[in-house]
């Protein structure tokens, strides 16, 4: 008991160096835990984006590529799927619902998604939550658009505002003769939906009527009212989200789509594609975790160096302890205790830093990157990391402890000051 008190008072006596060492350890531990939190947060955010979808269908390419362009609006499809194929899939046995996705146009930097009204009821995010409207509702008219929360916030759109869709993703050629109208604004979801302008499939067709292979047919003008009279049937879509009657049939349906004879198609399970994505980025994640582990190791070695540097001044202490009957192992134990206390304080403060930082940054991460990191009690993994830090710190304490042991044996009773 008295020894623990002495160790604490000895640390207190060197409070400045000890505090700096604790801070260094805390920062490194905070970095390590923070990286882990962001990593798991990013994974669950990605997984949350596709909850409730059983299969994603697109033209044949890689599963990760399909997942990225269809759901996350990252990259582009190499090929479309024809409307006939879409209808065939919709008619396949076991399909409960199917929602088409047609990508390729943009509005002031935001992607435009052509889809059906069913999209708004079928799409689920963050543990099965459905989309909700902050204002307005689904599109009714051909030129109605539903915009995500970020689009509304960034462009300052309100219900009824007009918007013009650009052909292609970063083009100046505007479909300006067919202005859309904001019919609905969605609540914030923390998913790519927030950055998407949704219109009907028919509208996508409509704005391309007078376009032939990417360039405007000369002279032709589009009269919105005339277009409304047309029967617009989509030629092709980019991808489709599929829900099943029963998840048991998912592999059978997947095989059926992959073997579809008319056209090379690819159906992927979102979870499986995500796994594949993680195995791709896993290398970077491991590297990041490795780097932050090295930072922790650096901090702990710094602590060992700090204790080591202080030893010479403390030879007296060791001699006094030996004189009153302390065995050399008590001297060693005291130094290990010191190292353990510093690393425990660093680990605890690091954990506090992570939670404090999270409490401050959570809303920002969510709104800026759609990265929702829940604040919850530390899990077994995190406690394991903390325990490992304390253990490693104590082990690092072996270096000064061993030196103190040698010194106290060599000093005898008199210490040269």
């Amino acid at each position, binding site marked *: 008991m*008295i020894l623990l008190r002495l160790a604490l008072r000895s640390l207190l006596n060197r409070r400045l160096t000890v505090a700096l060492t604790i801070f260094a350890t805390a920062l490194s531990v905070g970095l390590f835990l923070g990286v882990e939190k962001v990593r798991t947060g990013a994974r669950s955010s990605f997984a949350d984006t596709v909850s409730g979808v059983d299969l994603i269908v697109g033209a044949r390419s890689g599963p990760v590529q399909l997942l990225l362009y269809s759901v996350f609006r990252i990259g582009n499809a190499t090929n479309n799927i024809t409307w006939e194929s879409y209808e065939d899939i919709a008619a396949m046995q076991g399909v409960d619902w199917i929602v088409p996705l047609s990508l390729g146009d943009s509005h002031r930097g935001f992607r435009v998604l052509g889809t059906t009204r069913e999209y708004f009821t079928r799409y689920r995010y963050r543990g099965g939550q459905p989309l909700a409207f902050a204002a307005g509702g689904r599109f009714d008219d051909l030129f109605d658009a539903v915009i995500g929360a970020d689009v509304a916030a960034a462009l300052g759109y309100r219900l009824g505002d007009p918007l013009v869709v650009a052909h292609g993703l970063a083009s100046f050629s505007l479909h300006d003769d067919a202005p859309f109208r904001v019919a609905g604004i969605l609540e914030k979801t923390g998913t790519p939906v927030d950055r998407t302008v949704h219109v009907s499939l028919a509208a996508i067709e409509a704005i391309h009527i007078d376009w032939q292979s990417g360039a405007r047919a000369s002279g032709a003008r589009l009269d919105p009212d005339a277009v409304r009279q047309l029967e617009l049937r989509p030629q092709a879509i980019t991808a489709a989200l599929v829900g099943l009657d029963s998840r048991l049939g998912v592999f059978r349906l997947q095989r059926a789509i992959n073997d579809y004879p008319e056209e090379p198609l690819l159906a992927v399970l979102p979870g499986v594609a995500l796994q594949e994505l993680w195995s791709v980025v896993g290398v970077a994640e491991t590297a990041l975790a490795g780097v932050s582990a090295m930072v922790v190791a650096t901090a702990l070695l710094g602590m060992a160096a700090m204790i080591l540097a202080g030893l010479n001044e403390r030879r*007296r202490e060791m001699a*006094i302890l*030996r*004189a*009153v*009957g302390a*065995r050399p192992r008590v001297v060693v134990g005291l130094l290990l205790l010191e190292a353990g206390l510093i690393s425990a304080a660093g680990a605890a403060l690091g954990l506090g830093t992570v939670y404090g930082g999270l409490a401050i940054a959570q809303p920002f991460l969510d709104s800026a990157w759609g990265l929702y990191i829940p604040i919850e009690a530390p899990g077994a993994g995190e406690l394991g990391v903390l325990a490992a830090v304390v253990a490693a710190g104590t082990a690092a304490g072996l270096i000064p402890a061993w030196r103190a042991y040698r010194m106290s044996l060599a000093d*005898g*009773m008199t210490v040269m000051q």
Partner: protein
Amino acid sequence: MPAPPPALEISGLRFAWPAGRRGAGFALAVGELAIARGERVFLHGPSGSGKSTLLALICGILAPQAGEIRLAGAPFSALSAARRDRMRAERLGIVFQMFNLLPYASVLDNVLLPLAFAPERARRVGPDRRAEARRLLAALGLPEAALAAASAARLSVGQQQRVAVARALIGGPEIVVADEPTSALDAGTRAAFMDLLFAQVAAAGATLLMVSHDAGLAARFDRSLALDRIARTEAAA
């Protein structure tokens, strides 16, 4: 009835420091030496003559390369290092020349420190250890205000030496070993310190072995030994 064994016996002792950072090597040999229980012995010799080395051997901090040291008839130097440490904690109280105290610890914790390693001494002190520490400090003339100091480092050197004596005496060890305890004190405090040391060692019924290069202190002791008489020493060239 046979006479009780001496508090301390040395026979055929030999020890050598290897050449190293602290010197070119030093060897010490003591043939026979006995100190009776309750005796107050003064050991003097010039600086560097090996007094502290001999004390470290007597205290069991160093182990002799040959010969034996016995405490109250029981083997001491022949014990394992761990058992020597334990026996030192139980039976010896040590006062250094200076820097006796853990500077960051409180005065009371400094006094109570040996009890952490000496259960027998702790048992003798009884349940209220702090009261006993206070009693000793008061008997050694440490002002009440000094006790309240945040850490022992705040005390004057003279006060620190008194705290060191209290630490050496708590729990009633058999032998008090003091290595030049007065050399950091000025002449005035020195006499007062010696008076208190003698009184409290006598009150505890302890044996006292004190070392100094100041032969002028010898008169107050029962016996005075010159190191070069009891020991052969040899410093490498």
